[in-house]
């Protein structure tokens, strides 16, 4: 560790002066080191052969910064990489912006930066540019991070995010249980006094996604089920379209711990945020093969089919309930849980 418990972020760390360059060289360059970043020019120079690129950005304000299974740094890298991967792109470069509250612990910042570097390395992505701002005490809550990412997009996957080819009979697959991230973060908040034996599912999904894309045909759409959860992904897909979507409560994986907290606090797992879950819509005839491929990957072991596209009820998503009833799955209104990512 570079910093000790007592070291704090000072306003001067964001001034652009000596303290800023110290922070860059001691902390960021040390952990993120790569040829592009080391140039330390105002902008990073990137070379890409691909004609098509995907570009995305996301900001992270999770509270608390550290939670079972991850921290804000891991989340910021995974979130942006996953956004690229679900569009079919191969993530290449990331930028990161830090907004830090004066007095924040430098050793905690170091832990966060280190986990960002670890995740980026796992995904073979370079963090090539960044920015640090420090605001006076009370003007932001500890630390916010923004990451943007660029990935190269093979021509054959361009249609993936447009969801154009979805039709009746297509199957809906998810790679595991819902709500682990939300409930882990919630349980890490002291105010709620919930003890849940659970870790966040926060993980980079690019490898799993590429294994499916490279070894099968029939994936028609993918989305990571983050804020708003599974329900929101499906609702946005069905909205204004010619088809409806049916999901089966009995086949949707939800851990007992998550269900328990949901029963207690009135949350619906369908709307809880996940940070390592991808929803795929795949052609009926490819579904079993894709499932097999997914199950071979550590992040896809619990993959399952949870529903299908239907020609009835166009524009709607509905749930076949555990007891054999039916109910609509509507768009989330209001905020179920603020500052979850």
């Amino acid at each position, binding site marked *: 560790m570079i910093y000790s418990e007592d070291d704090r972020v000072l306003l001067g760390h964001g001034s652009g002066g000596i303290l800023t360059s110290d922070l860059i060289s001691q902390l960021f360059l040390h952990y993120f080191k790569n040829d592009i970043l080391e140039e330390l020019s105002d902008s990073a120079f990137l070379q890409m052969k691909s004609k098509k690129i995907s570009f995305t950005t996301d900001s992270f304000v999770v509270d608390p910064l550290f939670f079972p299974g991850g921290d804000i740094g891991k989340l910021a890298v995974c979130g942006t990489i996953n956004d690229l991967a679900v569009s079919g792109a191969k993530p290449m470069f990331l930028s990161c912006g830090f907004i830090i509250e004066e007095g924040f612990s430098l050793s905690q910042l170091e832990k966060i930066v280190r986990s960002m570097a670890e995740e980026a390395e796992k995904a073979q992505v370079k963090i090539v540019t960044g920015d640090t701002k420090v605001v006076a005490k009370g003007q932001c809550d500890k630390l916010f991070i923004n990451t943007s990412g660029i990935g190269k997009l093979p021509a054959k996957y361009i249609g993936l995010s447009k969801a154009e080819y979805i039709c009746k009979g297509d199957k809906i697959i998810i790679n595991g249980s819902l709500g682990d991230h939300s409930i882990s973060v919630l349980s890490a908040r002291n105010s709620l006094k919930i003890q849940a034996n659970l870790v966040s599912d926060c993980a980079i999904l690019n490898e799993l996604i590429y294994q499916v894309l490279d070894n099968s045909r029939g994936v028609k759409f993918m989305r990571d089920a983050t804020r708003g959860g599974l329900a929101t992904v499906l609702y946005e897909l069905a909205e204004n379209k010619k088809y409806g979507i049916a999901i089966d409560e009995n086949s949707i994986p939800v851990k007992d711990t998550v269900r328990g907290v949901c029963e207690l606090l009135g949350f619906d797992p369908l709307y809880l945020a996940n940070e390592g879950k991808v929803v795929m819509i795949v052609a009926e005839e490819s579904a079993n093969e894709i499932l097999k491929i997914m199950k071979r990957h550590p992040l896809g072991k619990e993959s399952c089919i949870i529903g299908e596209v239907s020609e009835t009820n166009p524009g709607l998503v509905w749930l076949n*309930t555990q007891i054999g*009833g039916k109910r609509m799955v509507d768009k989330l209104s*209001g905020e179920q849980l603020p500052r979850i990512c």
Partner: protein
Amino acid sequence: MKYIDEYRSPELVNCLLSLIKQTSTKEINLMEVCGGHTMAIHKFGIVDMLPKNIHLLSGPGCPVCVTDKKYIDQCIAYSRMQNTIITTYGDLIRVPGSSSSLEKEGAKGADIRMVYSTTDALEIAKANPQKKVIFLGIGFETTAPGSAVCIQQAFQENISNFYLFSAHKIMPPALKLLADGEIRIDGFICPGHVSTITGSKIYETLADENSISCVVCGFEPLDILQSIYMLVKQIEKNETRVEIQYTRAVQPEGNILAQKILMDVFEVRDDWWRGFGIIPSSGLKIRDKYKQIDAETEFDVDVEETILDIGCICGEILKGLKSPNECLLFGEACNPSNPAGACMVSNEGSCHAFYKYGKNI
């Protein structure tokens, strides 16, 4: 999951459904009094599973929905006082008052905090001795004992900056009003949680004087279907009795200790219910003994004149006279993101449940 899945078994659900179908011959109106029941009925898709001759009406048992607009306006006035923290259960924050809401006041700088229990509110008061901490006490016999205990504790521990603003209500007078009212109710699906405190005796007048069958019901799908079956059996035999389906939680005499605490802290007064107007002896006021904790006696605030709802038919819905889709505002002008009335704000409100789950599929 243990203690949950047992009450959601599809086989038993089917079994109860066929018993209901075999037994039920009459066209009947059953009212689920409690908002928790309304929500469960919609969430599990029970409405469409029942035979068409059984009509379910939603009653007045959603605490947020029956809380009068004047109360919200007064909460808003409290939130504008200097050095004040408002603590409340979540739903109330978004209920529209006459010209604002607690949510809007929060955005303008008022300190509004959502809590999950009265204990949390008390903790906030202890942690902020220089501020006035007001807890907004709403709800029926279910939540009122929590408020009562909290008041006793604040009193005993001499926590001088904690206050409670009571809109607590009791259920029997509203049920009696409905039973005497214009709509025919054949059976009450009686509120399970209220009854854990009050016991099932409070429904006896309804059965005896108004000839309405009553079954105290739990909140899981099998509880609800079994209660409906029990009601159907009574109605088919022209019986009007009070039965308890929710035996794992409810006793005929209720929770005597909680009742005593309730009576120690509160006295009954006439109270406003949204959509009903004043119902005699239906509200709970903090007794003089604890008056230094009563926000109403402690703070004199200017409350803006309450503007009556235009177009919102919450009142008629709460009385079972109309259904949410009969409201002209439903959907476009009133929805959960932009609620015009209280029934759309609360998760347990009929309009909310109807909006969320109600489209025909």
